[in-house]
């Protein structure tokens, strides 16, 4: 168990996982539940346990659509989607390389790509 990793996930997500009362409403509301190996309520619990490496290796974190249904409906304001995003970020940071070079971006752009997606990509793929 890597406690630094847990600390990093908690810090970058800003989520207090101890607020979770394990009601499972996040999993009850998740649209890509069936695609996932681990489910939203499990994400939160695994981060609480510090079992982050397993999560990072799982494909589940890339199945999350970041639709924020769980964030909206969580009765305890735990915000599971933010935890997922933080785990993704941790993975990227661990790889330690820049996936994007500023100069190469214009040719990668698609006219139909929403502006928000570009900003998100910047945030995700740059260290």
């Amino acid at each position, binding site marked *: 168990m890597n406690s630094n990793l847990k600390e990093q996930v908690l810090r970058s997500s800003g989520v207090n996982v101890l607020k979770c009362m*394990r*009601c*499972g*409403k996040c*999993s*009850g509301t*998740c649209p890509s*539940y069936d695609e996932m190996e681990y*489910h939203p309520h499990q994400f939160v619990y695994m981060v609480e346990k510090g079992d982050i490496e397993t999560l990072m290796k799982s494909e589940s974190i890339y199945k999350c659509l970041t639709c924020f249904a769980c964030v909206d409906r969580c*009765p305890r304001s735990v915000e599971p989607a933010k935890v997922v995003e933080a785990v993704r970020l941790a993975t990227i940071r661990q790889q330690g390389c820049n996936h994007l070079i500023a100069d190469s971006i214009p040719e990668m752009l698609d006219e139909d790509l929403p502006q928000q997606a570009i900003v998100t990509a910047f945030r995700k793929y740059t260290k």
Partner: protein
Amino acid sequence: MQRIGVFVCHCGTNIAATVDVKAVAEALSHESGVVISQEYQYMCSEAGQNLIKDAIKEHKLTGVVVCSCSPRMHENTFRKAAASAGLNPYLVEIANIREQCSWIHKEIATATEKAVILGRAAIAKVHLNAPLIAGESPVAKRALVIGGGIAGIQTALDIAEAGFDVDIVEKEPTIGGKMAQIDKTFPTLDCASCILTPKMVDCSQNEKIHIHSYSEVSAVKGFVGNFTVTIKKKARFIDETKCTGCGICTEVCPMKKVPNAFNMGLDNRTAVYIPFAQAVPKVATIDANYCLKLRGGTIKEKVCGKCAEACTAGAINYKQQDEFIEQTYGAIVVATGYNPIKLDKFDEFAYNQCPDVVTSLELERLMNAAGPNGGTLLRPSDKTHPHKIVFVQCVGSRCDDSKGKPYCSKICCMYTAKHAMLIREKYPDTEVYVFYIDVRTPGKNFDEFYRRAVEQYNVHYIKGMVGKVTPKADGKIDVQASDLLSNEQLHIDADLVVLATAIEPDQTARPLATILTTQMDTNDFFTESHPKLRPVESATAGIFLSGVCQGPKDIPETVAQASAAAAKAIGLLVKNSITCNPCVAHSNELMCNGCSACEKVCPYGAITYQDKEFRMPDRTTAIRRVAGVNPAVCQGCGACTVACPSGAMDLNGFSNSQIMAEVDAICK
């Protein structure tokens, strides 16, 4: 010259272990005015008290300082001891050297030093103590109960039983409250009406109980034993003394499309109505918002009037106005109850979109023999039998966000088990699912009851929360939920969805708390005086709490608390007079300049101004406006003493000079 006795307590080793009590007694014996300074193992014991009593007599003490535990603990003990030895009890001061010294410090040297300073401050204060005599004020032998649900009814019956007059103020046209709407009660499954309505009848027949239905409390003045309350009787456009409750008016009323609040809006009633058959008082009420003749605020001369024509008793009076009654009470019991929360913020449960998503209280009406379907459970939308019913627990309870309530509503687990069981019993072909987070069933026979629902009635309990409810075109309702134990997401095609909605205090509670000057928590529940030892008294003397207005409760707990509140109220009412706190403000009329600053800050209205004649230095007389304090009303907060610009206002027991002396002694 003052003759002061100092008594230092060891409290076993509680004090003596960290404070050198002998050194404290020795140091304090040199203070001015101290004639005797002693230490003893346990001052609060019989022997310790005798030590103080003997010293008072022997040394003719004029003041006593006890260095011991917190004054909140034993101040009264030592005051009583002093009084029995002939010393005015208010000449005793406590130096708190246990909670605020020995228990929090570790080093003997510094703790001892601090104990000496605290003792010195108490000695400085006691030098300036004046003997005080507690006044008395009479108790009005009548109680007011605000709210006529089961809590209010039980309290009123118990107080009346003891022989005191009780008034019930109920804002609805009938007493009975929420319990009248409930079908069956857990865990015995007996009919709620069958046990409630006899009590309602007892209330109406008891000559000590006076019911003000369709009324509200609009103002409260005064204090414990002597509250003056203004009750607003809202115009019901029916003369209560003439109406026989025959109900002919409701038959002839042409306005039949008024949502029936008693049935949670699931059916309609007429504009003139009696809420339900067993209503007490059984008197009709005209709803002026819907009555063809009265709506819009003016009486339309040539419109309708059918109820007046039909009424053989001549009880209908379209010109009736709101009436205000003023009455004096010795005690007030608050029993304002609860309501289910509004579900506007919970879009995911589709409550506002789909008529077949109902709250539990609505389900009670749907299943009730006196309800809209005569007791047959039918879907509100198409009046067919539901075959698959989903119950959702904790809707709005245990929420950390602004949408819901942070507390557990306590009753939902049990009533859901009850509903599930009743449905399986009556309609065995119905599948019942209950989605729960935790099943909380503490209470006598409660867990057995819940287990019966699972084991005997085969109700499907699933650990997990419903995430989304979607009404479908074919009339079914898609319920999407997680099953945390099998780790899968479920979709259930339900016919009816029942939401165990959180409960919240009635909306009238907060304005009432302001009128009564009682405390409330952030959830608008009334705060009890002590969470463990004084659970039915509010912090304001003479005001008691009964039922859900203090916190979520089921019926047996409510009744128990109602009787407890009644017992406390009776304990107050049997007294002919009550002792007042003598530590009240008083004004020095010679110094008062009549500015009214104190009158404005007094939260109790205890200060009044009057014109008085004064002899002036040149032997003439002048009339000056000066402040006077009513010692029975003043609670002794001291706000006025600081507001007074001329220094005329002072507080007994905590006078300016006393506190200054304490400051000086500490800073010496």
